[in-house]
């Protein structure tokens, strides 16, 4: 009896939830439909899924230990035992590429984990309070944006000393202005809307308005933007590793692998070629997905498609 009652309650709740959120649900359904309809986005999604699987299950998928040296089997060409060959220390390149997915995703996630909150915090503050707070934050953002990203990341990376952690910090320091600007823009446009004014009239505190009314809208906009940036983050990190300002050996970092493999370009082409291809593929996947998500979330383009 009790269980039946609970079931009924649950069903009722689900139905009512569905009714209350009908617009969101249809929106979601439509989004899924749009993603399905766009083959390129599906490809992007697939690439990213593969990357994630590689990153999580690397120890089970990779045929060899990515850092174990086999000095008697250096620079072996691709074969059945080593599908993508071995590098200058006899390490299996395929295994290193598989583990490298984890490194690449870690960079993306940590950079965004620093930048999204930082950008939102600064952007919200600038947009909501305006005045000199806005002025100071946005001018600092302007200054940071006046550097080409790779150059600034190189400078910061050099100053902090080359390591994976510092690469992430350096890239994060170059990207926050983008998010701060976006969050500020959103805040400014939301601030003027009537419901915020109503809240304010009711005496709701600034903090509550920021956290419960403005923040959620900002977050979704910033996440869309973040998907567009993911590919770029991987590319900049790879560039820094390539120049010797990033990850340290024996980390299976793709950029580092291309960099050390450079000397083997002619005679052992597989050493630099496959890791480079992995970078291309990963960035390509993120860009496809980012493009797709942007198209879908852009109301104008969304209309245009139908």
């Amino acid at each position, binding site marked *: 009896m009790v269980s039946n009652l609970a079931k009924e309650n649950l069903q009722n709740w689900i139905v009512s939830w569905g009714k209350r959120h009908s617009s969101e649900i249809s929106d979601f359904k439509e989004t899924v439909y749009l993603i399905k309809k766009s083959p390129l986005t599906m490809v992007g999604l697939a690439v990213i899924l593969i990357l994630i699987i590689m990153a999580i299950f690397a120890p089970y998928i990779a045929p060899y230990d990515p*850092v174990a*040296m086999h*000095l*008697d089997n*250096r*620079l072996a060409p691709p074969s059945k035992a080593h599908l993508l060959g071995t590098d*200058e*220390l006899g390490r299996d390149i395929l295994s290193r590429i598989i583990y490298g997915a984890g490194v690449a995703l870690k960079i993306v996630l940590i950079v965004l984990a620093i930048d999204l909150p930082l950008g939102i915090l600064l952007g919200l503050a600038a947009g909501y309070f305006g005045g000199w707070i806005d002025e100071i934050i946005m001018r600092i953002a302007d200054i940071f944006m006046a550097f080409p990203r790779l150059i600034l990341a190189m400078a910061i990376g*050099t100053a902090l*000393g*080359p*390591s994976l952690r510092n690469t992430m910090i350096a890239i994060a320091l170059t990207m926050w202005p983008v998010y701060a600007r976006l969050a500020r823009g959103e805040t400014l446009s939301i601030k003027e809307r009537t419901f915020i004014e109503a809240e304010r009239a009711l005496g709701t505190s600034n903090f509550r308005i920021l956290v419960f009314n403005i923040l959620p809208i900002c977050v979704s906009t910033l996440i869309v933007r973040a998907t567009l940036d993911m590919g770029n983050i991987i590319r900049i990190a790879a560039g820094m590793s390539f120049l*010797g300002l990033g990850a*340290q*050996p*024996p980390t299976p970092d793709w950029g580092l692998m291309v960099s*050390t493999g*450079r*000397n*083997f*370009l*002619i*005679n*052992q082409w597989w050493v630099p070629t496959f890791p480079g291809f992995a970078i291309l593929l990963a960035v390509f996947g993120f860009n496809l997905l980012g493009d797709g998500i942007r198209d879908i979330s852009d109301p104008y383009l969304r209309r245009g498609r139908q």
Partner: protein
Amino acid sequence: MLKSKRTLILSLMMTLAFVLAISGGVYAAEKVMVIGMNTSPIVSLDPAKAYEFEGSWILDNVYDKLVRFKPGSASEIEPGIAESWEFSGNNITFTIRDGAKFSNGDPVDAEAVAYSLKRVVKLAQAPSWVITQFGVTEDSIKAIGNKVQIIMDKAYSPSLVLSCMTYSVTGTVNPKVAEEHNVEGDMGMAYLTENSVGSGPYKLVSWERNQKLLFEVNENYWGTKPEIDKIIIIDVPESSSQLLQLKGGTIDVAWNLEHDQIPDVEKTKGVYTLSKPQFKLIYFGMNGQTPPTDNVLVRRAVKSAIDVEAVIKAVGGGVTELHTFIPKGMFAYYDGEEVPYNPEKAKELLAEAGYPNGFEITLTVPDFLSTEGTVVKSYLEQVGIKTNLEVIAYTTLLGKYREQGLELVMARWGADYADPDANAKPFAHCRTTSDEATIKQLAWRNAYANPEFTDMVEKAAFIQDRDEREKVYLELQKKWQSDGIFKILYQMTIQLGLNDRVGNFILNELTQTPWELITLKD
């Protein structure tokens, strides 16, 4: 519309024709040799300032030194701009040869030689210590007639002094030119950075940084007449690009090939390889002051844990195995290995020293040794020493190193002259680890003072008898290996790729090549 299309096609065809003409290339009968080299280390081509292998290699052929090594040798001295010399007590007297001229026609006399040596002392640039270590001052260098007399503070071993005199820093510059371009008392140093007026077989014509250096024959050279009219060194930083360009025929000499590229050169028609062990070595060092490496047992354990054969394998072989600071081919070389690879022994020693579970430590290596660093890290971890590998730019490393701030380090060292003293001083001489030390070199940088070693190094520099001197060095090397803070990983070998038309390209252990002897077929 139609007309413009035709013009477009025409101009495209012209472009193509030009491109083909350029890539084909038709040149005058003049003999030109092109060398591909990473020229970025070259800071200056003033003999008083240049201190890199590449720069010295060039300067040996632009400026004349008092004496030099016989082609291909690093021990037998032959006359340079001085035709003879004489030692007496703490003096040396060089007799300058007659009739030698600078590339601009001015005569080379004893005054010019003395001026050049005084200039080195006065400018006090990095390589000046090669001369000043003998207590030489501006006043102790004198030109007397056609002779140059140098007075030292003590009677040093003649072979040591002469070895030092073969270094490019003693190159003779034209005093007139140097004084003409004197800017704020720099004795022409700014001018001579990128210009030359020497009396060597070649003269520097132009230097576009990061692009190329152009040398032409010095018509006034007193020695063997060079066969090649122009030598061009182009900047090709990567060994893989050098190999590509050697095979593609853009360059005749590829200066820094990696050993893994040698088989490819060997099987390619029309090119060949040349390799020569150098008086340069790669070493591993431990801090002698900070625990746990202040403990001699721990140091022995670490040394036993490293398999140098694996390191050599990892870099592709082609280098020379070496266990001591005196490189193979140099006087007083000791071929024994006191602390060989033995991981079991390493674990025992660690336990005995009170670290049965190992410890954690940071190994700092420059970017060009990242492979070696990776291998050593993995071997240290096999005996339980958790190693954080830090690969940084060489300049950053030197900065921390000079402040005695590294735990474990790996770097390279090149002897400045072909005498054991050149390496004994840096590797073993350190009386105190404080700022008062006289020689703040490798032992000091690793904060390791050993008075016994220091005494032996000082003593050996003055022993005139060759056998007795050798005995001291041999004993020093044994003790140094077992108790010291260093382990030598290998002796470096230079590997060149050459086009078949290049012949008689001679190299000695100090990376010296007489350009005037190189032959070039059409």
